[in-house]
């Protein structure tokens, strides 16, 4: 049985790697995508363009505005002196934010009244707006603490001392780059496996395969091996880049990562083969792959947390292997939990893999076109 499976797997690999276009699809985009997306996928902002509308130029105002100008998160794009300019600047997206210091600013501070600092911000991407306001709040808080101390004022009776676990500087790149391992491996494995059987069907070579001594299970295994091998190779490459290029710390064990990757590949390949066996034509197979892949990625918790979703959508994500693998990679990189904690993420992937494989092999035997 095994020699036959290996022979088929070898044929698949050769067929894929010998066609230059097909080879490029498997090797080129993942490398480019990892580098490009690794830099693109972050909620951290830097050099946010802002404008200053200062009606008061007292010492306090100057100091506060200098704090904004000195922050690496912000970039002073313009000083304006008319209120009517604000609308145009923000509407045209010339700046994301306008900092407005009112006429009474210095007097309010001198009198010990809270001096208002108005921030007008473009909310078209409300998440970006919130993140930028968070940075601004930090600057204002620091200014307040400094001002209170240097002027011998009494501070607030209670203060927050905040600390973040696992990611002390709250770099969102640490969250996204390991996650890309799941995304890219999923897309490539699906592209390799889901379309392969549909192609054989459309070319008529699938019937030829069926009259060989191979059982449907042999064919399935032979078809899934290349996907698993390519997935492991790409997963390894992504981990190396994540550690050595993006400098994300690796706290957990690589063993846990590879166990997770293997189970994830099993479930991804299983899903791909199931789609493949359900579809009669290549076009349907591609449609099916997209219909599975887009929700699998967008609802996996890669960018938006699963906890924010309504309950019925959350139940749907239980069938998404990427959901579990993302928790595993992020845990292996940032938290380094024990196998016991990860076990709850590992077994669902195994279940998805076994069930989809079994369904695929049943469909092979019972649906011959």
């Amino acid at each position, binding site marked *: 049985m095994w020699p036959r499976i290996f022979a088929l797997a070898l044929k698949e690999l050769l067929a894929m790697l010998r066609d230059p*276009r097909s080879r490029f*699809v498997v090797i080129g985009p993942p490398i480019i995508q990892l580098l*490009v*997306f690794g830099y693109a996928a972050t*909620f951290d*902002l830097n*050099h946010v363009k802002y404008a200053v509308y200062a009606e008061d130029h007292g010492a*306090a105002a100057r100091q506060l505005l200098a704090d904004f100008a000195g922050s690496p998160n912000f970039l002073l794009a313009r000083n304006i002196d008319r209120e009517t300019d604000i609308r145009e600047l*923000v509407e*045209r997206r010339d700046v994301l934010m306008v900092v407005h210091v009112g006429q009474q600013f210095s007097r309010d501070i001198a009198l010990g009244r*809270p*001096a*208002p*600092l*108005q921030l007008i*911000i473009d*909310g*078209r*991407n*409300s*998440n970006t707006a*919130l993140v930028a306001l*968070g940075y*601004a*709040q930090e600057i204002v808080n620091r*200014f*307040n603490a400094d*001002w209170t101390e240097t002027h011998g*004022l009494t*501070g*607030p009776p*209670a*203060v*927050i*001392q*905040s*600390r*973040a*676990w*696992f990611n002390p500087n709250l770099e969102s790149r640490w*969250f996204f780059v390991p996650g890309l391992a799941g995304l890219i491996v999923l*897309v*490539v494995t699906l592209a390799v496996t889901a*379309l392969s059987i549909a192609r054989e069907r459309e070319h008529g070579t699938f019937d030829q395969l069926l009259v060989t001594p191979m059982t449907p299970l042999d064919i399935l295994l032979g078809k899934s091996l290349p996907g698993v091998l390519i997935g492991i190779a790409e997963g390894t490459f992504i981990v190396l880049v994540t550690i050595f290029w993006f400098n994300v710390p690796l706290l957990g064990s690589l063993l846990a990562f590879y166990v997770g990757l293997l189970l994830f590949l099993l479930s991804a390949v299983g899903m791909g083969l199931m789609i493949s066996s359900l579809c009669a034509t*290549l*076009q349907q197979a591609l*449609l099916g792959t997209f219909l599975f*892949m*887009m*929700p699998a990625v967008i609802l996996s918790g890669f960018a938006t947390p699963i906890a*924010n*979703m*309504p309950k019925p959508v959350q139940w*749907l*994500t239980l069938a998404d292997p990427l959901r579990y693998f993302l928790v595993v990679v992020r*845990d292996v990189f*940032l*938290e380094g*939990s024990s196998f016991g*904690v990860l076990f709850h993420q590992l077994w669902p992937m195994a279940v998805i893999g076994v069930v989809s494989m079994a369904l695929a092999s049943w469909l092979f035997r019972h649906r011959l076109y």
Partner: protein
Amino acid sequence: MNTAAATRGGSRMRLRGLLRKEFLQIVRDPSSIAIALIMPVLLLLLFGYGVSLDAKHVPLALVVDQPSAETASFTSAFTATDYFNAHYFSDLPDARRAMMTGQVDGIVRLRSDFSSHFHRGDAAPIQVLVNGVNANNARLIEGYINGVWAAWLATQSQQTGQPLSIPVAMQQRIWFNSAVRSKDFLVPGLIAVIMTLIGAMLTALVMAREWERGTMEALMITPVTMPEILIGKLIPYFVLGMGGMALSVGMALWLFNVPLHGSILLLFFCASLFMLASLGMGLLISVVARSQFVAGQVALVATFLPAFLLSGFIFDIDSMPHIVQAITYVVAARYFVSILQTLFLAGNIWAIVIPNALALIVMAVLFLAVARKRSRKRLD
């Protein structure tokens, strides 16, 4: 003169014939109708409900080492708000374990000296620990906790009559989305991501299929010219794609209640430019790939992830490194996302719409021209 007129007339006739053939093919094999009309509705339904960045009911651990009147009033502020789902834990190790296993996303702890510090007015420490793995969420939680703290301080100062000495108070005004509903910008962005795929997939497959089945060779021996073949393919799928677009925009307006401040006509004008660009990209993929298999693979790898990650739909383009920003210029979805977010949330702002629409025109022309150049009547 006569012959020129005759050719033109013949061209129109040939085109009509091709269109008829293409429409018949679409009607008989309903999979393209499924791609153009059912897929966007399904996906937008799923994502419109599923994708949200507004964290509500964040699980939070409260640890109070020595309860007093002050600690009670502070912690009750957390149980009262919608943003948190607060649970009391008896001690810090317990709460830490809960955070390790993911039961809570943050811990607020008041040490035993909280009340004594508070009465002396010297900065009673409130210890906050957040799980930083999802950095964006962690920031959001810190922001919420900050808000609860500021509001509590204000009420305390009112009750005790002691003025609150805050030198500068930040007042924020969030334009275009004052309620900070993340759906309002995510749903228009999702339309761009979904329609990128639909457009590219519709055309990517049909051309490759003609090559693979050998029907392209049959077409070649007819008097039909290559531009006629391309236009004959483009028109029916453009109509289908715009149908899907209309459904998506309708869902955004009436199902997800995204406000539309700009003009709907302008929206559809820009949408048709975008549709041309993505159909053009699909044509290009199919012409270059030649086989359905490779065209499918390329469409999988080259359309979805770039539209998802590089379009500004969710991640801010201005914060990316310059090289990556340069790459985003070839992602058609980028221009459409910008137009959609502006038209939906801000209105007809020509300074945004015109440059982005021009970029879409350039992309559409470029893709179609290259596809035209690469597809010759030739057998390899």
